[in-house]
């Protein structure tokens, strides 16, 4: 069983090894568990060598996009005379995802260390950890750890006696899902509205404060110290033999209608069926799984059979019509109104749209209104066609993918669970006089 339970025998706790172990939170405790050895070693390495180890390990971004971390780091040109920045994306806001929260709550020094190594590797003197405003405890944990690290000379002007400057600071968000999008995060960090930026320029060219910047997810950065400690080959072993593209262990957050919700860490390629029934305990008593979202609410909804056939890595989920995303597994059982669930997801996106792009600003709200009307028994069959057309207008046409994310559960829901919508429409008792737009 994964946290908040004891690790299940089939888990591979690398990042989650010390979840629940409050001693690991302190600097002393972290050091006795091997902490900061990787950072110390990395300070003696050329940044390019660190980057190549991370490249070799096959580590890919754990925030959702799955971009190879070492390749991303290699975009930062050394010696360009500009200040470089590392941003750690701890704005974990994707519904269904709560893994970074546990990392920061239990092993804050792991993240400090990951940030410090990352900063050194990309030639940055400063790393900002952007934590969503609601995460009061993780913020306090991170700040306490950073304070300890400065006091011990691990961070600061002469990090671990290396003569190098490594600063790590916490920056608190204030309630905006979109700030998890990397360019929005940079804007927010600069003291602006969290509006995503048009790319190009990409962050590695002009990121935060207009300078070359790398943005990595919390889970990505905490995976770096174990990789440096154990080597790239060790990390690569956590994969299925027929898919070397996804390597390492992955933390999954599991929530919704399932027996044992929580965080679980398994190697890439783990069978999703075993994961759901064995590790997470299957459905609640007397219920059946109805729909499963494996990677946060932005990825396509799976049917139970699709989920059961999935292997848990980037390619495995794509093969079953969805994506690994952030690893936030949301389970909906047969006692739920799936349309209401999707309507609520749309409302989330309507609430969080930054308001820049037309399709997103208007489309998320429109989609929500239609879905809520259908859920309330006031829908028509034409509404379903309209929903799909709106979703098409919202896909692939905006600055960022929030708009696409809102369309995804609608499209996949209508494709795979159309009868849920239709039964609500048939039950309709009276018809609203349509207003003409």
């Amino acid at each position, binding site marked *: 069983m994964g946290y908040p339970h004891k690790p299940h025998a089939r888990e591979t706790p690398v990042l989650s090894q010390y979840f629940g172990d409050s001693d690991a939170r302190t600097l002393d405790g972290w050091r006795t568990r091997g902490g900061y050895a990787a950072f110390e070693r990395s300070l003696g390495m050329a940044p390019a060598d660190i980057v190549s180890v991370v490249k070799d390990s096959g580590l890919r971004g754990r925030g959702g996009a799955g971009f190879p971390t070492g390749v991303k780091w290699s975009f930062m040109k050394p010696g360009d005379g500009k200040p470089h920045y590392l941003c750690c994306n701890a704005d974990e806001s994707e519904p269904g995802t709560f893994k970074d929260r546990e990392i920061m709550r239990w092993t804050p020094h792991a993240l400090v260390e990951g940030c410090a190594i990352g900063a050194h590797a990309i030639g940055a003197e400063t790393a900002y950890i952007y934590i969503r405003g609601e995460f009061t405890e993780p913020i306090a944990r991170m700040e306490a750890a950073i304070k300890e690290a400065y006091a011990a000379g691990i961070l600061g002007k002469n990090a671990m006696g290396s003569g190098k400057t490594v600063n790590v600071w916490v920056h608190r968000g204030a*309630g905006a899902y979109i700030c998890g999008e990397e360019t929005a995060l940079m804007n927010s960090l600069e003291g602006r509205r969290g509006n995503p930026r048009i790319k190009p320029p990409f962050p590695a060219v002009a990121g935060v404060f207009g300078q070359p910047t790398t943005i990595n997810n919390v889970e990505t950065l905490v995976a770096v110290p174990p990789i440096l400690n154990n080597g790239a080959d060790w990390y690569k072993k956590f994969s299925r033999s027929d898919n070397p593209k996804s390597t390492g262990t992955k933390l999954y957050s599991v*929530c919704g209608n399932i027996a044992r919700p929580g965080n679980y860490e398994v190697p890439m390629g783990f069978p999703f069926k075993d994961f759901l029934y064995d590790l997470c305990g299957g459905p609640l008593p007397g219920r059946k799984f109805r729909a499963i979202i494996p990677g946060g609410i932005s990825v396509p909804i799976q049917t139970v059979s699709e989920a059961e056939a999935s292997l848990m890595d980037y390619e495995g989920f794509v093969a079953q019509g969805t994506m690994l995303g952030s690893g936030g597994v949301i389970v909906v059982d047969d006692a739920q109104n799936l349309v209401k669930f999707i309507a609520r997801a749309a409302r989330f996106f309507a609430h969080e749209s930054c308001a820049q792009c037309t399709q997103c600003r208007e489309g998320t709200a429109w989609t929500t209104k239609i879905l809520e009307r259908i859920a309330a028994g006031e829908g028509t069959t034409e509404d379903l066609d309209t929903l799909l057309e709106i979703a098409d207008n919202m896909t692939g046409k905006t600055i960022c993918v929030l708009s696409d994310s809102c369309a995804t559960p609608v499209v996949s829901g209508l494709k795979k669970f159309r009868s849920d919508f239709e039964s609500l429409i048939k039950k309709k008792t009276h018809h609203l006089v349509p207003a003409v737009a």
Partner: protein
Amino acid sequence: MSIREMGGVEAPADTSHGRHGEPHQPVFVGTRKQELDELLTRYPSKMAALLPALWMVQHDRGWVSEDAMAEVAGLLDLTPAYVKGVVTFYTMYHQHPVGTYFVQVCTTSPCQVCGAEEVVEAFLRHTGCQELGVTSPDDKFTVIEVECLGACGFATPVMVNEDFIESVTPEGVAELLSRYK
């Protein structure tokens, strides 16, 4: 575990002042000003200190008034209108005074399927707020629905000011509230 127990960020000590229309007392004086100055050393631009500065205002005053926005604007070489544009973007900044205890109940899809709506109802009933966003008659509570709090496996997570409480059930609401009377 709550922030309060850890000696972390406290609930505003005094929300009796700073209602709409009352004269503004500057926030950034004495140690607050020093804290802000210290913070400015972390960033290459003054503007980057905007979100932290607004947090300081809200911590001290319980909300961010227009006067406070103007004060922050002056300190960071911004215009009040710019600051207001930022404040209104981020949902955690209160643009109006709220109850002593600001209760946020997550109702996004994963929590919704676990019964978050009943938790909301329980809060509205037990606090006397009756309606979302409306402060209770005794000025103690304001209850809102909040979008995903990032603790979906611990449905239903609830924030009371800076306290983060996991796995709240409708049945547990009364007991929970008794801690904030």
